[in-house]
């Protein structure tokens, strides 16, 4: 302790003497990569039924997060049953074991715990979080939901009605409307062309029977991951998980859903979603992106950081917000899924400035190809991604979430350990290649949500325009 104080005093003297040069003019001090997980805290195991276990011990606080993730989600649902995985997840939340919907919620709330059941494109998850001293009760809830969901018919009717109402309400949000219409314009006929929760015509056909059958085909232990993070120790947890989930019977693993077309769209097209009342237009541009497991993901991500993913350091933010005052926010990014999801640029502006925003955005996309990230820009992008990663290591639940994500896509288990190294090894040639290969400003879908009457005249010579109702 005394040693540290002496060093601290010496450092502060140096700082005091060195005050002529402000910190912003000095090169960034060297950073030290902390290990992703602390030695001896991370464990893997497997139950006899094939269930993989990932456990990250962290005893700083008396709480624990645990759950089960299966490797199938909306991505294996057919186009005309869109929403089935989301519907199934919600139905699982409404009664399990001896608990009906209300009793299950009360069991969770009485522990001060949380229970969330979610369906994404490539996975479904049942997660519980609570005090570590309630571990057995939390495992009991988890086990009941995973092994004995009630899938009650009356609850299915309620869930369907509520989902339909939510879908209608979502049209009040211009951002949601924009994303939905982009997906439709890119992937119509493929599952990716409809929202995760489905559309009214598909949701209307969903019922308890379909949910039960989907649950059975997707919740199989030999394609699932159990995870726990927090104040637990592996030695006492392992037998308890065996009791809670050991009886879960193996099953056949559903094949993944079909891939969407490789190039979408074939040519530029513009969709106006007519909302005559809005004073601001939502703008979203997109075409095909890359898959989660694409080996170029890091290089693509760095290129995108310079383009629009890097907040105030991104070119799009600089051009549209800082220089022109045309928007409050602009961003770009990849929908990373099993199959390539969309690459998207998204922003908003006052209705009469839409053309200027579109022109500047298209110019930035073209500039990224002609004038790809410089050494300085790439260095900034690398630092941003490495830094975000380091900040993300703060909670064990976040680290474990990232490790589970690797498992979902069957990526190398050391991907987190090598992540910072792979970022630093990426060169300006790599990001230039990404800009050339992955950006297609000439063939984009452009979706605008706002008053068609004021938007349409601004779009001359940009491409064919379709006006649709929300």
């Amino acid at each position: 302790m005394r040693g540290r104080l002496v060093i601290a005093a010496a450092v502060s003297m140096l700082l005091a003497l060195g005050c002529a040069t402000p910190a912003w003019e000095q090169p960034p001090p060297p950073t030290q990569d902390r290990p992703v997980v602390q030695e001896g805290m991370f464990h893997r195991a497997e139950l006899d039924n094939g269930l993989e276990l990932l456990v990250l011990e962290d005893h700083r606080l008396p709480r624990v997060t645990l759950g089960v993730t299966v490797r199938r989600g909306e991505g294996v649902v057919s186009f005309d049953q869109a929403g089935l995985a989301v519907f199934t997840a919600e139905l699982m939340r409404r009664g399990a074991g001896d608990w009906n919907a209300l009793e299950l919620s009360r069991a969770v709330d009485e522990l001060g715990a949380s229970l969330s059941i979610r369906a994404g494109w490539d996975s479904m998850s049942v997660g519980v979080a609570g005090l570590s001293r309630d571990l057995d009760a939390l495992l009991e809830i988890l086990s009941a939901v995973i092994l004995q969901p009630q899938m009650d018919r009356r609850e299915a009717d309620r869930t369907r009605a509520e989902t339909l109402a939510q879908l209608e309400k979502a049209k009040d949000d211009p951002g949601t409307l924009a994303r939905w219409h982009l997906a439709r314009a890119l992937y119509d006929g493929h599952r990716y062309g409809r929202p995760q929760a489905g559309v009214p015509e598909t949701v209307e056909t969903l019922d308890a029977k379909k949910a039960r059958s989907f649950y059975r085909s997707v919740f199989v232990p030999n394609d699932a991951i159990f995870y726990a993070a927090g104040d637990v120790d592996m030695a006492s947890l392992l037998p308890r998980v065996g009791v809670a989930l050991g009886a879960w019977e193996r099953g056949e693993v559903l094949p993944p859903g079909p891939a969407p077309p490789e190039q979408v769209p074939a040519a530029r097209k513009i969709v106006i979603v007519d909302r005559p009342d809005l004073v601001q237009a939502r703008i979203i541009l997109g075409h095909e992106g890359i898959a989660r497991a694409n080996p170029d993901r890091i290089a693509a991500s760095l290129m995108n950081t310079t383009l629009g993913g890097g907040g105030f350091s991104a070119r799009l933010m600089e051009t549209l917000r800082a220089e022109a005052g045309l928007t409050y926010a602009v961003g770009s990014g990849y929908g990373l899924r099993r199959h390539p999801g969309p690459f998207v640029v998204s922003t908003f502006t006052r209705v009469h400035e839409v053309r200027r925003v579109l022109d500047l955005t298209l110019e930035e996309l073209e500039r990224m190809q002609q004038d790809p990230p410089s050494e300085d820009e790439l260095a900034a992008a690398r630092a941003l991604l490495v830094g975000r990663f380091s900040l993300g290591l703060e909670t064990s639940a976040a680290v474990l979430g990232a490790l589970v994500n690797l498992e979902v896509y069957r990526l190398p288990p050391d991907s987190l350990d090598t992540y910072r190294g792979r970022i630093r090894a990426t060169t300006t040639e790599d990001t230039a290649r990404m800009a050339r290969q992955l950006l297609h400003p000439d063939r984009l879908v452009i979706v605008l949500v706002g008053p068609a009457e004021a938007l349409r005249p601004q779009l001359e010579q940009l491409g064919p325009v379709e006006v649709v109702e929300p």
Partner: protein
Amino acid sequence: MHETRFGALIVASLMSLLLLADSGGADDSSVTGADDVNASAGLLSPLSSLEDPVDRMLETQFENGLRVLTLEDHATPVVSFQLWVRVGSRDESRYTGLAHLFEHMMFKGSDNIPPEKHAQLINARGGRINAFTSRDFTVYLADVTSETLPLVIELEAERVANLDISQETLDSERQVVLEERRMRTEDRPMGRALEALMALTYTAHPYRWPVIGWRSDVEKATVEACREFFDAYYVPNNMVIAIAGDFETGPTLDVIRRTFGKLPRATRIPRNPTVEPVQTGERRAIVHFDLRAPVLAAAWPAPASGHVDGEALDVLSTILSAGRSSRLYRRLVYDEEQALDAEGGFWEMLESGVFYAFATARPGVSIDRVERLFMEEIERLQREPIGQDELDKAKRQMEVGLVNGLATSHALASRIGREVSTFGRVRPLAERLASIQAVTVEDVQRVARTYLQKDKRSVVHVIAAPPGFAEQNGAGR
């Protein structure tokens, strides 16, 4: 507005409306298999033995009045720096929205730093930087790894000492803020509801206007007004610096002393004198907006931060809104199937609070019916005492928020910064737990009767205009 007073379950959706966070671009979309970390809390026994990191906090007061709170924790890879300035929209006089517009200007350059460079420098070292303005506070935040902390402090001090407000950058930035206003308020049913509700609940007090300001004021605010505002409120005796996480206190205090330590103290910090008159009857308003799912918003005057009834009002909020076994979810969403969401909660501010009610009706459902169901639940709390089991459940859920507040450097820095800015001290965990435990069934009924009276409420309906309305009134603008 107090994150431990709310709990994520209650106001996740509201937080972004109540605060004006100035964050960057749209999120990268990606799929993860992970779930939220919603930790939980228990009865007194497991938590009363929990170490409160705040016990290790050091407070340093500089001669110019600046208070610096430092809380070292080397078990985490992150350090969170927060500058809490005791200025918010309540301090505005001529131009509403000035506090928030000014927050934006803090990123637009100083004598030695060009516009936008501040955020870029932090980004380029992997840090997260943000700011927000509320009715009471303006807060500048940075989460970084430890080697970047000196830069964060020097940049923060540079803009506080040498901010450059030019006509050109102000004109450009006001357009950005107007876009923010369109996005958050003008084109959004909940934004419309909140704006109308506050203007109805407060007739005189500055809490009545929106933090982002009225459009015409944002359009006209001047460079001089920004400078005056800066000179009046951005003074060391109106600031608290809170730092938590992986850093060394000694050298950090030296950097602060060398930078912030030079700022001159203000002799007087101006405050608006207006006190809200007592409300003597129900107030109602209707907002027409092109929407499918009508919105109900209501509010009752409630106590200011630190009032003895605060914990009982929080218990009341939790019983109404936390989790799927809560009364509002059960009645409005589940049993009656009339609403898509419904929440009621206590929102405390420095000078007075409100108890709010928000609900979204299902498309096709009358907002009157949703209001009737909501108010029936309020009246039931006044009429019948809650069950002991319901009280115990609510207390457990509230303790969740307290444990969550210990999980990250950011949450710790927020807690100490907010508490010292609000109460002049940090309330220890044990004290919070004890005051939650002290709430009785009778307390909950009493605060429901005292504060949630029918003739004290203000009610807003955001509904679609009746047919013909748009043509007559030019709602298309």
